[in-house]
């Protein structure tokens, strides 16, 4: 019962954030696409946590941990990637 419900919620969370793909596609600015990815990242972390609980697979929490860490990493790369030559800092130029 409980695992089923948790898995159901995992599906729900995933479904709602997956809709964010539309924003990735549509943009219009790079910032929009990044935000959508960010949302998907967080939602993905939530999905993994729920799955870990549903499948009773505590090791999967580590995956969420790594995803959380790398979400920050990827986001920095996004921001960097939007600057010329990929080396800038939006704050610096602001």
């Amino acid at each position, binding site marked *: *019962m*409980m695992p089923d*419900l*948790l898995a159901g*919620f995992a599906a*729900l*969370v995933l479904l*709602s*954030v997956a*809709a*964010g793909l*539309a*924003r990735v596609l549509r943009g219009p*600015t*790079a*910032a*929009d696409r*990044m*935000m*959508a990815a*960010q*949302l998907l*990242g*967080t*939602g993905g*972390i*939530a999905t993994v*946590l*729920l799955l870990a*609980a549903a499948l009773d697979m*505590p090791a999967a*929490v*580590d995956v*969420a*941990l790594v995803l*959380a*860490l790398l*979400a*920050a990493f990827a*986001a*920095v790369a*996004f*921001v960097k990637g*939007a600057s010329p030559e990929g080396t800038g800092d*939006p*704050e610096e*130029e*602001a």
Partner: protein
Amino acid sequence: MSAWDLFTLAAVAAGAFFFLAGTVGLLRFPDVFTRLHALTKADNLGLGLIVLGLLPRAEGVFGALKLVAVWLLALLAAATVAQLVARLARREGDAGA
């Protein structure tokens, strides 16, 4: 189904709702900054609630700590990144104007 289970379900359901809200905001709000606003609020709260809900099922204190660490990390990343993205969006806007 125990009380903890009910707590878990309630918290998780609330979390899922925030994710849904965040997505709707991301898709429906008119410009970058409002979307950003919707996003940061939604996903941090959403993830937080889900972590909260799962805490009772965690594997000991260490497992619980890990769960919290996941949330904190995500929060940290989201906060800083939101800031950077906002700056970027403003610059892009400037450039576009």
